[in-house]
Every structure is written in C-alpha cells, then in structure tokens.
C-alpha cells in the first residue's frame, strides 16, 4: 500500500506536507544534499522590489535551543529574482512560492503584479511579519486593517495562490487571521519568528548589530504550535504550521493541532537532510497508526 502524503493547500496540490521555509533555503539553487522527492514546496528568501544589502554583522547568534537572526532581507530585488532564479524554478517538480515584502501596501501589490505570470513562480507568501526591517514588515502584521490592505493589494494583482505569513507578536492572532482570510488569502502561515534580543557581556552592547532579531528553533515550538492552532480555529482556509520543527514528531504536533502542512526552517541549517527526515517520519507515523493517507489524520480543532 502506498501512503498518500499529498495535500491541497491554499490553491496548490502538493505531493507532501513538508515545505521549505523562507529564508532558510535561499532560492533553492544551492541547497546541499537536497532530496526533492520529500519537498512539498519551497518558499523563496524574502524579496523586495529593489535590491537590499541587508544588515551589518553580526547577523545571527545562538540562544538556548534557538537562534536569533537579523539578516535584513538581503536580496537581489525583483529583477534579479526574475532573471537569475525563476527560470530555474520553472523546470522543478515542486512549486516555488515567492516571499514578498514591501514598505507600503502598494509595493506588495506592485511586486505581485511584476511576478504574476512569470514562469517558475507558483504563488506568493506575503511577509507581514519580518522583524528585521525598518519600514513595513511587522507593522503590517499586527494591525488587522493593515494586514487586510496588504492582502487585498496582492490579491487584486494575481490569480496565483496567495498565502500570508503571520507574526506571533500580536495579542490575538485570530483577529489578524480572519482579516487576511476576508481580504482574499488562500492560506495562512503561522508563525514567523519572535522578536528577541541578546546582550554581549564583553562588548556590553547587543550581540546583533540590528539590536533585535527573530527567534527561531525549538525554543519557540510550543508557542508556535499554540498560535498555529489558534489561527486554524479562527479561519476556514488552511494554516501551514511553522516554528522550531526539527523532526517528524514536531511536525505532527502542528498537523494534529489543526495545520494542513508545515514549513521546516532552522532545522535545515543544522541538518541538510531535515526535510526528508521529517517527511519520511510523518509517513512512518501514519503507516504505523493505520492511516492510508495524510488526509485521514484527525485534527484537534474544537470549535467552541
């Protein structure tokens, strides 16, 4: 019996529920030891309209069971992405979504318009949750009207799947989730990194040059499972769980808590085979528990 791991998520039929998270996979062109068979989809490094240099070093620091990063969305801008990467993606056997960023809602819309119809681009993940940019980013993610305005601006410009990546830095993620759903999002990704800070005792200043950074890794997992669960309970579109998934059991927590799929990020830094191991581990769990498909896995989503 072959186990059916495929899943329909926000307008895309994926061969498996394990996706590569934005910013942890580059543009997918130089990932070592990549096992494509296990990859449901890839979300590209976040892109702005124009090229960005990123933040000065130090950009990363390890913390207990996690890491802080402040890369600052270094990237080639939309022209570089279309020229250098999209043509390669067009021949791949899994969809690539572009993580899009802007300083205004109209910049997000303009980016979607520029990328819509470019071969190789399978959809968009709207980033309204990056903690490491001066303008935009997180601001859009913690105000339901701003989140909706950005989602609408992108939705108007494309028929491709539109996903919205939510920030955990909110009082009630359900409010933001519903605003994005109402504005036309096809799926939600929950959650981006938490804002954190660490001090250097020798230099007596923050260890990151940007002062703060986004916390990822196992340190955030229970927080992320809870937020993804809250988002899933608030909407009827699929939620993709993200946050500290290192192995299959971690991914299964998100799936059982109501997520349709998961993204693996920081784990790839540590273990280039993490995505394949998570995929295979989910399949093994389903098989040993008597499920014939991922779709049969029950989700814990009380609607009280």
């Amino acid at each position, binding site marked *: 019996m072959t186990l059916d791991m495929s899943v329909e998520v926000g307008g895309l039929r994926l061969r498996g529920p394990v996706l590569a998270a934005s*910013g*942890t*996979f*580059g543009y997918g062109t*130089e*990932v*070592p*030891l990549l096992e494509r068979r296990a990859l449901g989809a890839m979300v590209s*490094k976040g892109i702005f309209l124009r090229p960005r*240099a*990123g*933040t*000065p*070093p*130090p*950009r*990363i*620091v*390890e913390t207990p*069971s*996690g*890491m802080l*990063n402040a*890369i600052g969305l*270094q990237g080639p801008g939309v022209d570089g992405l279309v020229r250098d990467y999209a043509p390669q993606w067009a021949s791949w056997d899994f969809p690539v979504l572009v993580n899009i960023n802007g300083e205004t809602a109209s910049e997000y819309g303009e980016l979607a318009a520029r990328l819509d119809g470019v071969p190789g681009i399978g959809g968009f993940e709207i980033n309204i949750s990056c903690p490491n940019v001066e303008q935009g980013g997180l601001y859009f993610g913690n105000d339901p009207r701003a989140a909706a305005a950005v989602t609408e601006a992108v939705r108007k410009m494309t028929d491709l799947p539109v996903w919205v990546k939510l920030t955990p830095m909110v009082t009630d993620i359900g409010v933001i989730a519903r605003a994005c759903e109402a504005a036309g999002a096809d799926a939600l990704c929950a959650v981006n990194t938490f804002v954190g800070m660490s001090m*250097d005792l*020798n*230099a007596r200043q923050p260890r990151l*040059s940007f002062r703060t950074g986004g916390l990822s*890794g*196992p340190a955030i997992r229970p927080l992320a499972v809870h937020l993804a669960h809250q988002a899933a309970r608030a909407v009827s579109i699929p939620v993709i769980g993200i946050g500290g998934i290192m192995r299959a059991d971690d991914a299964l927590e998100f799936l059982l808590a109501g997520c349709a799929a998961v993204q693996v990020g*920081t784990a*790839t*830094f*540590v*273990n*280039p*085979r993490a995505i394949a191991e998570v995929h295979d581990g989910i399949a093994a769990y389903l098989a040993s528990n008597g499920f014939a498909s991922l779709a049969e896995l029950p989700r814990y989503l009380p609607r009280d």
Partner: protein
Amino acid sequence: MFLLDAPLVARREVARGMFVLTFDAPPIAGSVRAGQFVNLGWSPGPLLRRPFSVYRTDGGRIEVILKAVGVGTAQLLAMTPSDVVSCLGPLGRGFDLQAGPKSVALVSGGLGVAPMPLAARDARAAGMRVTWVHGARTAEDLCSEADGDEVIWATDDGSRGISGTAVAAVPDSALVIACGPNRMLAAVASRWPDAQVAVETYMGCGTGVCLGCAVPLARGGYDRACKEGPVYRAADIEWSMLPSHLPYALGA
C-alpha cells in the same frame, strides 16, 4: 560536499589549552583544500553546528584545532575516542596556492594556525619556500606544531621569538597568507592588500542559505564567509564593519 558521522580518533594538546582533534572522515580528508572548513554537530550539543578550519589531513582522517571558549567547544574537548560527531564538508573556498610565487609567508595569530598546515602542504607542492610566522600573547600560547622552511615566532611579551606582533615580524614574500583575529587581519590588509586572509564570522548553516555569516565588502554590500569565503583578498573586505571581538578564528 559530504555529510557523515565521524568518530573521534585522537586528541593532543599543542599549546596551553589548545587541542587538535582527529576524526575519521575519509571522503572529506580526500577532497579538502587548504582554507576550507567543516561544520561539526553533536548530540547532546548546541543547536547550530560549529565551523572549524581543517588543520591537517592524515590518510582518511581530518584534524581540527580548538580551545574551550564556550559550552560547545568544552563538550567537544570532553569527548573520548569513538565518540561521533556529524561532519559536513568540505565547505567554503580555500586559498589559491597555484604555482607561480617563489615564496609564501604564512601569518597566524593564536588559533589562526588552523588552516596553516594544509596551506604549507599545498604551497610546498606548488614549489614555494614557506616561511611561517606564528604569534601569540605569550610562549605557552604558541602552537608547538608550526612548521615551515623557516619558522618565526612572535610573542606580545617577548617570552619567545620576536617581541611584538606576528604581522610586524613578516619578512618580504611574494605571497602572504594570514589567519587570526580580525584586528590582526586588518593590519595585514593595510600592509599587503593582495594577501589572502581567512576571516572569522559567526556562522549559521555553513552552506550558503542563511546569509548569517555576512562579510562586509569594500565595494559595498555583503557576501557569505561560508560560500564566497572564508578566504578573501585582504583589501576586498571593509574591515571597519567586521566585528573584531569574536574570541576565536573559525571555531566555537
């Protein structure tokens, strides 16, 4: 690039608190070039892997050099033979040691000895006369295995060799290769713009995807120590923007 489980084979002390660890890693030993590094992970251990220049190779074995500077390195140094680390490598772009120059000066400060034995090997193979200038704070901190056609020692306190910095002790050479604290490399850059230097940065993945190991460039922007580096032409780096207070050279 290989990802393999590498058993610890041996450990030896080469300076006060400075150790060389030998691991069995045949595919990496057979393909690593001077200046390249491996990214080591172990369990239980820190979340992220730790990058180490490959110090030497011996048949199917690789060696790395380290001091206990944090929890991770202390764990590595507490391992006993047959304990296993996960080893990813070889990574990065190494030194360019093609035949041409008649002589090379290898300049190392403290743990900056890390890439030098392989550099000496490759330089000799390319027909160069090797002068190794190795500096540290004091005699006890000098790596005992410095090796070359000529070896020049330098200590800040004058307890062995020349009193002063390794950089000040470098003789005229057709090619200069350097590794050590970023402060030292900045001094190298101002004296020999064309020197090849291996820089120290914090590192996330080691494979080019996280953009965590940004190196500020003199022409503007950043690239990645793990991919375009860790070896650079000295004058290509914007030294004023590269943190100088990291406690180690390519290792945690």
